[in-house]
């Protein structure tokens, strides 16, 4: 049943992705990306990744949609129409996808308990067995995030800090200026 639910949600995601490819209106595409993130978050709950689900719902569907909307506000929400779709790109994508699907034939099946990721003693099994005593919190994801992989999380914070600095230095702190809107209108008229 779980597998079925995840399968249906994944099919929704595929439909949404096709919608994003086809749509020319960037605003609609951004909203579809938010829907895509939210449905992915729902599927993550079914697949037992509750922490990932609420991070994806808050950060992926929430904050990043707001960032995109802000960027559209300062640029334009129209994608210029092109007559044709790129055939080489389509061929490349189909070929790569076929190779990747060929590569999945050896992969452990969904939910397999005997796959290497599940049985390696030094990693997942050890976290499950001893993190309650060694670290404390009942939520194992918290233990791994803050303790066993603490440097990873520190690095993440550094990346977020650097990104904040980069955005500030690119855009500056002061905003923003009526003549942009006028030139927008002129461009729309011409």
């Amino acid at each position, binding site marked *: 049943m779980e597998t079925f639910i995840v399968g249906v949600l994944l099919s929704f995601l595929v439909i949404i992705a096709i919608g994003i490819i086809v749509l020319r209106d960037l605003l609609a595409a951004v909203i579809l990306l938010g829907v895509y993130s939210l449905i992915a978050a729902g599927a993550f709950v079914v697949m037992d990744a509750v922490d990932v689900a609420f991070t994806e719902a808050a950060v992926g569907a929430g904050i990043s949609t707001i960032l995109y909307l802000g960027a559209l506000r300062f640029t334009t929400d129209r994608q*210029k129409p092109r007559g044709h779709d790129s055939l080489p790109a389509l061929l490349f994508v189909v070929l790569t996808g076929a190779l990747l699907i060929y590569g999945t034939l050896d992969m452990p099946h969904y939910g397999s*308990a005997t796959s290497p990721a599940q049985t390696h003693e030094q990693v997942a099994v050890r976290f499950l067995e001893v993190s309650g005593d060694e670290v404390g919190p009942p939520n194992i994801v918290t233990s791994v995030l803050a303790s066993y992989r603490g440097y990873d999380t520190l690095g993440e914070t550094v990346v977020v800090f650097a990104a904040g600095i980069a955005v500030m230095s690119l855009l500056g702190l002061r905003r923003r200026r009526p003549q942009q809107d006028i030139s927008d209108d002129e461009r729309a008229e011409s």
Partner: protein
Amino acid sequence: MMQSITGLYNYWAVIILMMAGLYILIARYNLIKKMIGLGVFQTSIFFLYITLGKVSGGTAPILTDTVPAGQLAAATGATAPEVVYSNPLPHVLILTAIVVGVATSAVALALAIRIYEAYGTIEDDEIRHIDLGDIDS
């Protein structure tokens, strides 16, 4: 045969999503549209990792004291209370990846805004033409 279709369906759907994102990235000229494609690609990778961490019959990796009667850990490396947990490690990696992904896309969108200010367009090919001086802006 049927079993391997249901067992591998997730991977295939993830690959289709990845390729949809990659196609947007290659074939669309609008910079923000490219970012959206990258977002589709990124979320599909999250899906791949969470798929790898799922154990069927498992529960979220939060320690419980109670032992559900019918749910004995036959397969995963036996924890003391007989509950099957899904693998927490992919969850941790993806938590980091989500936050880093939003940070990088914020930088990319800021760049798109700056490009729009400087060139008056966010279409890739038009920017290149302006750079090469083919058309006067």
